[in-house]
């Protein structure tokens, strides 16, 4: 059993890493996105979410493709200050991981052989102060 993800950042961002220039492409007016990253530094944390679960340095490479369907969605929450406008989507991915210290490697089937995610959405979001600024206009 393995669980690969980046560490939580000092600010508390959960498993979020910057995307290097050129690794993310939007197309079709924002209705499609392709992200491809190589050798991202992650940790293998099989016992997550147990606190202080052992974490072993690992590497992850992946490609993910989002494509909008024709089903538009709007999520607007005035209490939690966010609005999403977009489309339900399909998302397929392929990935490979390695844990050098234990000699483990794994590679998924190619992206065209992997089932789409059960849920996906693509679009635009505003939250926090940007939500409030739009509401004040």
């Amino acid at each position: 059993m393995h669980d690969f993800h980046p560490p939580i950042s000092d600010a508390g961002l959960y498993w979020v890493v910057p995307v290097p220039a050129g690794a993310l492409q939007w197309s079709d007016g924002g209705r499609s996105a392709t992200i491809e990253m190589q050798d991202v530094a992650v940790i293998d944390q099989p016992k997550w979410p147990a606190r202080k679960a052992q974490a072993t340095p690992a590497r992850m490479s992946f490609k993910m493709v989002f494509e909008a369907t024709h089903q538009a969605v709007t999520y607007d929450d005035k209490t939690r200050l966010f609005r999403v406008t977009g489309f339900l989507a399909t998302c397929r991915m392929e990935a490979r991981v390695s844990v050098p210290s234990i000699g483990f490697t794994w590679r998924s089937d190619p992206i065209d052989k992997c089932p789409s995610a059960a849920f996906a959405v693509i679009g635009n979001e505003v939250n926090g102060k940007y939500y409030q600024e739009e509401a004040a206009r």
Partner: protein
Amino acid sequence: MQGFNAWPQAAARTRPVGHIDPDGPSGPYPIPWLDTNGSHNQPAGPDLEPSHIYHFKGRVARCSGFAGVGTDGENERLLFGTKTTDYGIMDGEYWAARAPQTGAFTHI
């Protein structure tokens, strides 16, 4: 009895103080109310916001629920994914260090 400067002294003993940006760090930070289980994580799904970053506006993509198969280094077929296996993209402007910042980020 502790004086008013007891905390800074304690901090100085345990960690050297490097550069401190007077306007705060320019990196993104999480959505404050996303802390019901002691973390700033949230699932992907209908009526849930895709962004993990607060004070954000821009393009997003979010997904969850993968069920795939792959092959390890010993040629064993191993399943991957659960209903909560989730990923996301946030690409746009966020507010930090009292100024707008831009960047692209992924939740993996």
